[in-house]
């Protein structure tokens, strides 16, 4: 396997051929904030938090979708990037209903962690507070659309790891919703295997277990499952 060499934040780094900029950065302990990215799932480039500057390109590139190329010069942290990332987090917070104090994901929420790490104390935008519904028809879990950031991790884990493809997105723009089957109540879904993977990968309090005051997040279990399935290695 050939090796690619590129410059990241002024330092020369090496990357495996075909690796994404995000993978390269992670390997070299260069922090890049992400939300829709989840180790072991495909990339969609939806959240735009991992935007980086690539020399010679006048537009910002999503690190999770951009392949490392020989001789590339990448900046992962600049005043522009910080201001855009902050703005994205603020827009996400304003889009639906993210009141941390009364959320099951308080302290385990990735959106909250991002906001804290970026010093988002105030949201400059008017909260949309769209009064969306909740689906509590499943015996074990609840889907609260008001906390959903549409990262599609649940959709991808259900399709790629479980293979059921119960979830998908309907509509477009601000009317987009995560739906099960033909927009039917989750509890009545014929395709859902009740495996709970979607609940575990949800970055916010949109999917959570009934009767709990805190959600159970495990960022490594998908990688573990993939290794177990593909390489027969139960490396827990």
């Amino acid at each position, binding site marked *: 396997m050939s090796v690619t060499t590129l410059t990241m934040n002024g330092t020369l780094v090496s990357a495996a051929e075909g690796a994404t900029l995000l993978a390269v950065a992670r390997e070299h302990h260069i922090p890049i904030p992400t939300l829709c990215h989840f180790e072991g799932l495909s990339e969609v480039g939806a959240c735009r938090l991992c935007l980086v500057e690539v020399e010679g390109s006048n537009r910002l590139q999503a690190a999770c979708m951009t392949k490392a190329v020989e001789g590339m010069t990448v900046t992962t942290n600049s005043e522009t990037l910080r201001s855009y990332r902050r703005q994205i987090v603020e827009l996400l917070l304003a889009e639906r209903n993210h009141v941390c104090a009364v959320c099951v994901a308080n302290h385990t929420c990735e959106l909250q962690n991002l906001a804290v790490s970026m010093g988002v104390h105030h949201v400059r935008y008017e909260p949309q507070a769209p009064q969306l519904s909740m689906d509590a028809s499943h015996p074990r879990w609840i889907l609260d659309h008001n906390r959903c950031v549409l990262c599609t991790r649940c959709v991808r884990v259900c399709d790629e790891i479980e293979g059921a493809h*119960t979830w*998908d997105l309907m509509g*477009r723009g601000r009317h987009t919703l995560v739906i*099960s*089957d*033909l*927009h039917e109540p989750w509890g009545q879904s014929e*395709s859902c295997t009740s495996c709970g993977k979607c609940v575990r990968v949800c970055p916010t309090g949109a999917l959570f277990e009934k009767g709990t005051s805190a959600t159970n997040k495990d960022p490594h279990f998908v990688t573990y499952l993939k290794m177990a399935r593909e390489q027969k290695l139960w490396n827990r």
Partner: protein
Amino acid sequence: MATAAALPTKAPADNRLKMLDAAMTRHRHQPDALIEILHTAQELYGYLDLDCLKYVGRCLKVPPSRVYGVATFYNVFTLKPRGEHTCVVCLGTACYVKGTATILSALEREHHLEVGGTTPDGTLSLVSARCLGACGLAPVLVFDQEIAGRVTAETALARTRNWMEQP
């Protein structure tokens, strides 16, 4: 595998299901023909109901949530029966600047409708679109299949009132 019984039998026995099946056979039941088949289904039935979506999904081996997602993503698909007449209001930039928002709200007020809705008697459906590519004629409305340029609220109301009076 779904059978013909999966589709509603509200309509009298006709060959629409046969035509839908034929369209799917023509595409060799390939999952990537989904949009094409949904177009055919909508042309045949006028709208896409849940049984139809389920049937198409099964035949093309596409999960129901994706079929529903595609059917709700594109504006051309509708899950509710359309009225006998359709009035499309263009909200593209040029038309918007020329005042289609005012025309739209006039139509909404007049017929007690929201965009995307149909009057209770099933006569008129009000739909919005993003740019019909006829910006030179802005503001543009489409009455049934006929494009009308430089429309005013008065002319739009006259056309739709006419439909409502003689359905």
